């Protein structure tokens, strides 16, 4: 179970990064998400996404935010690229 959990967390982190890159112009340069997560851009983009969808604005990838990110959607970014 713990191994599965940590695997899941890793997958979720990748998904969050990919989602924010795709739809919120998050720019990454190949750095690991663990380093990015504590810095500004990731938190700011998460907040932007949470505000857009009317979620609680925490800047953290909480369960509700992850659920929203997992839904099927249009591929056009929510902010202009």
């Amino acid at each position: 179970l713990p191994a599965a959990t940590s695997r899941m967390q890793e997958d979720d982190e990748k998904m969050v990064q990919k989602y924010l890159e795709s739809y919120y112009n998050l720019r990454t340069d190949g750095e690991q998400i663990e380093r990015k997560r504590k810095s500004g851009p990731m938190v700011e983009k998460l907040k932007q996404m949470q505000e857009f969808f009317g979620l609680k604005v925490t800047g953290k990838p909480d369960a509700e935010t992850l659920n929203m990110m997992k839904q099927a959607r249009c591929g056009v970014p929510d902010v202009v690229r």
Partner: protein
Amino acid sequence: YALTEGNPRWEHTHLTYRIENYTPDLPREDVNNAIQKAFQLWSAVSPLTFSQVSEGQADIMLSFVRRNHHDNSDFDGPEGQLAHAFQPGPLIGGDVHFDEDETWTRDFRNYNLYRVAAHELGHSLGLSHSNDIGALMYPHYFHSGDVLLSQDDINGIQTIYGPSTNPTKPKGPQTPQVCDSKLTFDAITMVRGDVMFFKDRFYMRVNSHYPEPELNFIAIFWPNLPSSLQAAYDIVDKDEVRFFKGDKYWAVQGQEMLPGYPKDIYRSFGFPRSVKRIDAAVFEEDTGKTYFFVANKYWRYDEDKQSMDAGYPKLIAANFPGIGSKVDAVFQKDGFFYFFHGTRQYKFDPKTKRVLTLEKSNSWFNC
């Protein structure tokens, strides 16, 4: 709504489109119909007209492609991204790409081509994503059976191209705003401890652990319920919620729709045929009785005996003093009845038969 940054738009109002290839998931005619209907949604509310061409370059080219298809956005295989479109402009401008790794349908199954095409065409015409959950331009896929432009979508497209030349000005459904002081409700009930408010196609839900109200489509929970419900009540000990519209009602347990519904209110509850709809209903836990409010009268139904109590209907004003003579919605919580009429809400103590407080109807939403 939001416009695409830089406000790109088509300079001519008659646009052409071409379907470059067809998905094998559907007959060609179904694809043609879905795309045509999607264009009609937008032409009905704007001065734009669209015609299909079978060869050459059209303003809007539509195609089914997968993975890397030589634009700036690869598709991602099944699920995830369903489609994308480009803003108005020459060449790739306006074009719509559908992810061929999805399964395309003409019904409620994922993913309805008409629903997705209608959204993408909004981008082709210059709209960006809306954060109004009831808008077609909301970025997440949800299909409840109807594909409707909301008033938000109509406002968006008319901001770009002006109003429709059609003399009957079409209006779209509005998404309820929880903090709108003019908000009224169709029906309200408790559902497994949460208060659920119903309005048009939407529910609003609050519970004590999460103060932010949740707004979403009724069909998310109960795909077979109609919109614009008129009354609802929960029987806590049976874990059952009943929803009413016209002379029909439906029953659910949690997310499960109970089989055998809708049933009619005449045979099940014994209403006379003169009753065409129920305005509001509430179950009183202590007594096992359900109160049905119809115009200025109410009826009392015994859930144990499954029969209407004798001596009803009675006047609402006679036994529920202070709440007026008409009820839009009512629910019970902690032994009190909360009556709603228009933008007013009355907290009523059924034991003392007194109104305790008067509030705005949306006081539950922490506005």
